[in-house]
């Protein structure tokens, strides 16, 4: 039983790592721009396809492919900000509807470019750290966990130690007051969109060798991310990280000890309970609720 608990804990850590990356990106975009980006799961999908193209098809090194995927999806995010979200800034539902439309465009482009079948991504490494007979941690999964920790720590440092980061936080807290202080709303929106999209892209790129890459893969990721940010409090980065870890542990343990369908139900019930008890989410403020 101890070994089963340990292995399940390792599985949960991996699930928490990529869930947190996706959820934090989604929260950042909402926090600064006030837009619920329904296409965020498809940005995750684009990151995975970057690995298919650069690593699997062109045979470039995996880390190069991850960097390309991260930058590419970040640039797509910049394009979304300029083409959709900025012109619709004063329309509360406009950005949401535009992101749903863009979601479908991205799925169609992926289908046209790569076909509808799942893509094969060769394993980066098959090495496994054998802790005991029943407790094993594949090296690649460990790498994904470490990469997520480094990226989230870097984001935290960026937001708390740099002028751009302060500007982002100021815009998130009160856009009008930030603008009066000379902070460019367009500039902070661009930065938030680039970082938020890049985080989704890098999550897709990091996990691509471990999951089925197909044009519809973003769906399940975005559902989980929405549960996380609603429970964590929409707009709260700390809430997104903490709840991503908590949700991943609950979901993984329930899947292992009961089954995956019950785990989904438990996740949704948790969201329901939090919404009833604290409608702003565990770490949310009333300003953004």
């Amino acid at each position, binding site marked *: 039983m101890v070994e089963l608990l340990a292995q399940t804990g390792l599985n949960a850590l991996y699930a928490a790592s990529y869930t947190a990356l996706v959820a934090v990106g989604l929260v950042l975009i909402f926090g600064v721009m006030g837009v619920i980006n329904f296409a965020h799961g498809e940005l995750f999908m684009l990151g995975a396809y970057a690995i298919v193209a650069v690593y699997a098809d062109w045979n470039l090194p995996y880390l190069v492919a991850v960097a390309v995927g991260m930058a590419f999806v970040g640039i797509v995010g910049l394009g979304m900000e300029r083409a959709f979200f900025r012109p619709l800034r004063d329309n509360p539902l406009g950005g949401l509807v535009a992101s749903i439309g863009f979601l479908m465009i991205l799925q169609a482009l992926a289908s046209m470019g790569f076909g509808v079948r799942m893509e094969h991504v060769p394993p980066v490494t098959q090495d496994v750290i054998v802790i005991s007979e029943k407790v094993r941690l594949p090296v690649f999964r460990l790498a994904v966990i470490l990469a997520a920790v480094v990226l989230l720590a870097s984001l935290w440092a960026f937001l708390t130690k740099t002028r751009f980061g302060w500007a982002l936080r100021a815009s998130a807290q009160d856009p009008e007051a930030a603008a009066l202080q000379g902070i460019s709303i367009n500039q902070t929106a661009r930065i938030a969109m680039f970082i938020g999209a890049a985080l989704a892209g890098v999550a897709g790129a990091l996990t691509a060798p471990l999951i089925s890459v197909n044009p519809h893969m973003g769906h399940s990721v975005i559902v989980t991310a929405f549960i996380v940010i609603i429970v964590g409090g929409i707009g709260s980065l700390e809430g997104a990280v903490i709840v991503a870890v908590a949700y991943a542990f609950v979901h993984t343990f329930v899947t292992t000890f009961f*089954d*995956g369908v019950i785990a989904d139900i438990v996740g949704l019930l948790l969201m329901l309970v939090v919404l009833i008890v604290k409608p702003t989410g565990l770490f949310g403020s009333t300003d953004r609720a």
Partner: protein
Amino acid sequence: MVAKMFKNVLTRRRLLGSGAAVAGSAAAAAILPKSAFAADKVVKIGFLAPLTGPVAAWGKPGLDGCLIWGEWINAAGGINIGGEAHAVEFVAYDNEYDPAKARTGATKLIREDGVKFIMMLGGDTWPGAQPVADRTGMLFSTLLPSDLSPDTTTLIAPCEVHPIYNVTGVEWLADNMPELKTAVMCAQDDALGLPSVATYLAAFEAAGIEMQDDPLLFDPATTDFAPVVTRLISGNPDIVCLDTCYADYVHPICEQLFQQGYGGQVISCTADFYQQIVAKTSEEFMEGFVFQFPDFDDPALNDESINFQMPNEFYAEYASRYGADQWGAVSWEYASIMDLWKAGAEKAGSAEPDAVLAAMKEGGSGLHAFGEADWWGKDLFGIDNALVGNWPIVVIEGGKATIKEFRSIPEWYAKHGELLKKHMSAYGQMWDQRT
């Protein structure tokens, strides 16, 4: 992406494939009986299956196979209906494995395209199309006989008897590896997964193999299978059964089994694109993997009892067009249904659904791809609309799928039918329990 789109339009493989297609058509034209058909004599066949989305692996390869079949038939003179040669044309509609889209597609294919027969994957999409079938009397086929019921007499399952054939794989395992005593199973919680769970449970019980745990059901939206696999192998089972998991699940589950150090026997309904699983795990890990769908370059398919036309040539043509690693469970199945439909239409002298259906079922038997078979199923589905006979047991050996044996499904059912009905009832999968 632009480069890849261009690559998708014209690649060296496609260029070579086009040459192979011409050569294949010429070969087929030389081998098959030839007759001329007027340009306006065309019989349209509907292809209503998932061509995109997670279940596309059980739709799109089938359409690809049908296109080869159609080219070969047309090159050989078409289908002789009532003394006149007709070209065959496939009209495809992507139902995305969505019942509402299946209903829209069925209506469109009948009303706008004038098709005479509609082939479906079935499963979750059949309830969408069923009202259209009942209203129009159109002849439909499904790969999943668990869709059959007496409510719709024009739905047939003439090729795949999913999930009943899975019993042959378990029976073969029990006969050849009697040391395997315990099993676990996982499945997605849907219309494909649940009847297959019931079938495997019956097969394991009949074989005297003990289930260590209840089948582990997972949400079809699952992407990370590490927790599922951790649970599955926690009790050191001799056999891990992957039920009828989609290819998108079989691959990551196998990878997880490999990474979490499982060294026992794996059995699955399908192993589509298994070369990719071998690449993600190892040849040693996949050695002995049992499933139910052969590559059609297998020499065992050249036996005279096999009714599929030129299986090795068909596989070669498919591989040259789309790649051998794109061959899947359904690549040949819809084409084999077309063999039966063609024979029925020629026998009836008509393409009308009721006439073709009567001709196909005349005498109570038919020429299934894997040998002569009987129209069967009243006991289980309430109607004898499934063509059931032998089915192959396929084992991966040296990284290649190999047919080990053909076994009779009706013979198994004659011995263990009550067990199957018991488990089907427990999972609400008998025809009179389905809504």
